[in-house]
């Protein structure tokens, strides 16, 4: 091969203006991965004829292999303008764009590519662009159906109900009034001209059962339950956000009655300082439009949102018709703690446990904290059991010891919340926190 290249070089040297000859040489060099020389030859051709598509494609390929993505993108764009982008170069173009992290143009190109070649599949690009479904060339209607059937967005039908939720009386009442009664007695609400559906925003320290009660709500009215987590929201920021959000709401509307649960909703609102950036504003506006049900009715869709940082939630979220109920989910009270402990210990080997005593000692412990306490006690018992070879049941003493080891994790949250309640509470939004902390102003 090298011989041929040498001969060709000589020939090019003799007739330097012979474009096909030079292209042939450059192509061979590219094949042999002699990138520097290939790029030189392609450049020479372009000097002779600046819009030679073969040379442009070749040079772009060289740049791609040399990992010089931005010059490669410039060349591909030129090819695109000349309508000379074949499928191979389109693929390279997409890859370059992905490396440079420009996802939107990459996605557009990939959609075109899939349109031309419906059978095409590239796992790497799929993963980067997160376009499952697109690979099958589905129409958006069909895709929506598919999403609903496939239980994407973690759609489920929970079997939990309110009777299984200990404590949280006020919360349950509020939710009943807003959601459960409207669905059971629609005519009464109609008579008063009140729409069903709407939103409730729950806030409180982590691990106190916000997700749990959302699920129980869905179970109570035997509705479907779609849950969106922090990562889904983040992906909206990064990728093609507005469309995604609309899709999710559409799925919920098609599956009514449906509870749409958005965890860590403050990630959507971001903080005040970030919001001045218009790109971020867009997704908030889209979310508000979906909440308001501008294009499509939200009847029968209940949006429950939870957050640990209500102060970061955009205040526009709290207007009437959106999240007009803002509820504080406090750490469980003594009675609830006793119930929670009893249910955690129900199927564990335990001996004469006085849950009331432990409940008394664990003020401010969240449900997750109580779980951790039991876990610590069990771990120690397990070690002992393995050493002795006989199963040792968990005793009261073990639990008391574990309580000493595990301090409540809600403390940190309350130090922050206390400051907001004391100094940033003009609207009375945090009165519940003041009441809970026994602070009077």
């Amino acid at each position: 091969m090298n011989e041929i290249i040498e001969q060709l070089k000589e020939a090019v040297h003799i007739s330097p203006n012979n474009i096909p000859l030079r292209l042939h040489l450059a192509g061979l060099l590219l094949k042999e991965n002699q990138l520097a020389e290939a790029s030189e030859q392609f450049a020479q051709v372009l000097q002779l004829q600046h819009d030679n598509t073969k040379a442009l494609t070749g040079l772009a390929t060289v740049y791609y292999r040399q990992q010089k993505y931005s010059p490669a993108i410039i060349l591909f764009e030129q090819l695109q303008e000349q309508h000379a982008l074949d499928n191979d170069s389109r693929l390279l173009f997409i890859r370059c764009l992905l490396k440079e992290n420009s996802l939107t143009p990459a996605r557009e190109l990939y959609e075109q590519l899939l349109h031309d070649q419906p059978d095409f599949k590239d796992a790497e690009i799929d993963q980067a662009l997160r376009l499952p479904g697109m690979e099958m060339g589905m129409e958006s209607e069909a895709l929506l159906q598919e999403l609903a059937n496939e239980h994407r967005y973690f759609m489920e039908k929970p079997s939990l109900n309110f009777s299984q939720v200990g404590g949280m009386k006020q919360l349950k009442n509020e939710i009943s009034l807003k959601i459960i009664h409207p669905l059971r007695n629609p005519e009464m609400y109609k008579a008063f001209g009140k729409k069903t559906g709407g939103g409730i925003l729950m806030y409180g320290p982590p691990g106190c059962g916000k997700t749990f009660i959302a699920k129980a709500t869905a179970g109570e009215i035997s509705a479907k339950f779609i849950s969106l987590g922090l990562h889904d929201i983040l992906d909206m920021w990064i990728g093609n956000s507005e469309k995604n959000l609309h899709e999710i709401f559409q799925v919920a509307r098609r599956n009514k009655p449906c509870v749409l649960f958005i965890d860590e909703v403050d990630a959507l609102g971001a903080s005040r300082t970030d919001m001045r950036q218009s790109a971020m504003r867009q997704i908030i506006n889209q979310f508000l439009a979906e909440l308001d049900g501008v294009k499509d009715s939200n009847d029968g869709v209940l949006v429950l949102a939870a957050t640990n940082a209500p102060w970061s939630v955009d205040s526009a979220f709290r207007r009437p018709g959106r999240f007009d109920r803002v509820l504080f989910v406090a750490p469980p009270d003594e009675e609830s703690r006793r119930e929670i402990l009893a249910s955690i210990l129900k199927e564990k080997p335990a001996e004469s446990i006085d849950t009331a005593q432990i409940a008394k000692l664990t003020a401010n412990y969240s449900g997750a904290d109580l779980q951790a306490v039991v876990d610590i006690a069990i771990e120690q018992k397990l070690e002992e059991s393995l050493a002795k070879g006989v199963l040792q049941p968990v005793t009261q003493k073990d639990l008391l010891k574990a309580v000493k080891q595990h301090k409540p994790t809600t403390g940190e949250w309350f130090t922050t919340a206390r400051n907001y309640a004391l100094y940033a509470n003009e609207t009375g939004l945090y009165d519940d926190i003041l009441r809970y902390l026994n602070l009077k102003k």
Partner: protein
Amino acid sequence: MIEQNKYHYIERARLLLKQKRYKEAEAEASAVLQGNPNDVDALQIIGHCRLDNKQVDEAIALFQQCVGLDAGDDYLYYLLAFAWYQKNKMDKSMHYLQQAISLYPHHAGYFSLQANIYITQKKYGQAVEAAEQGLRQNAKDVSCLNARSKALLRLNLEDDAMESIQSALQIDPEDAQTHVNYGWVYLEKNEPQKAMEHFREALRINPNSQYAKNGYKTALKCKLTLYRWLLQYHLWMSRQSKALRIGFIVGIWLLVSFFSRDSNTGTRSDMIGQVIIGVYIVLVLFTWLGNTLANAYLLVSPYGRYALDNSEKWSAFSVTCVFAVALAMCGVGIFYGEEWFWNAAILASFSILFNVMHFPVKIFRGGKKQVMLQALLVLGLITIASSFISADAATVCRSVYLIALAACMWAGSLLNA
């Protein structure tokens, strides 16, 4: 790990960092490090998280590692400079900051840090210059405007300082730091009511800002006239250069000792001398204890109670208690003799110790100064106890205690100046 996946993780980590979800941001960045343990972006994000969580040493170690991998990134040097600034090491901070500026001299934020370093070093003229250089890069940089106003205020150019703050507030009326600055300007102008409004506003915007809380507490305490005088004195002192402040303290002391040089002769000037010494001691004690006593006032006021942190609460509480008991002991002394007056005086002197002690007390731990304070406290207690055993022992103990106390106080107040 595939290259483009890395960007996905990094971008997510950056978003999370912006939203102050440090735990999640670190998790995303760590995922990148699993593929490449030397990834500069990921290391920098983790360092940034640690920096915001006050784990400054770890942050510095991470940034150093980053600099080792990519010596051309100006922002890394800036982060390092900021970390050292937080550790109060101004020379080191300035060293790295200069590197950042030399790599990229167009970032207003770099100059605002520079101005703040100069302010800490009390080089106010240079601080103004640095802030203005930053403003040339970005005329709307709020942090530069704030630093400029702070420096101008120290240079006694109140009106210019005010103007600078007003333009900062126009650009961003929702900036807590600007409101805090505004509040301090009003305190300096002896208008605590207006100051209070701005501190309240700052706390509304960012209830967790320690600066805002400190200002708020100070403004509350200004309801006490005596404290207002004390504050004016402290603010005036803080504007002076270090040499001037030491000169002032030593000068006053010399003056007092000159007037009271013949206070044992029994003449009329003896009386004057004793009065001068008395007034001097009260004033000195007031400059030391005034703040804590004012905190004791906050302790019983409905708003102030929540603003104090635990250490301040305990300090104020113990100082007040010590004074109350000492007063009671004086009462006992009227009936039972001189011994009790001495004990009352020694007990009262504990207030000076409690004033600077950190609460909750870690017994003989927590740094040289704290250990020294605790040793003095023990010595004082022994002295009081000795008065019940033998008069001679009490005399010896008293002299030792008083000399030790005086030495520590002198050294302390000179160091603080």
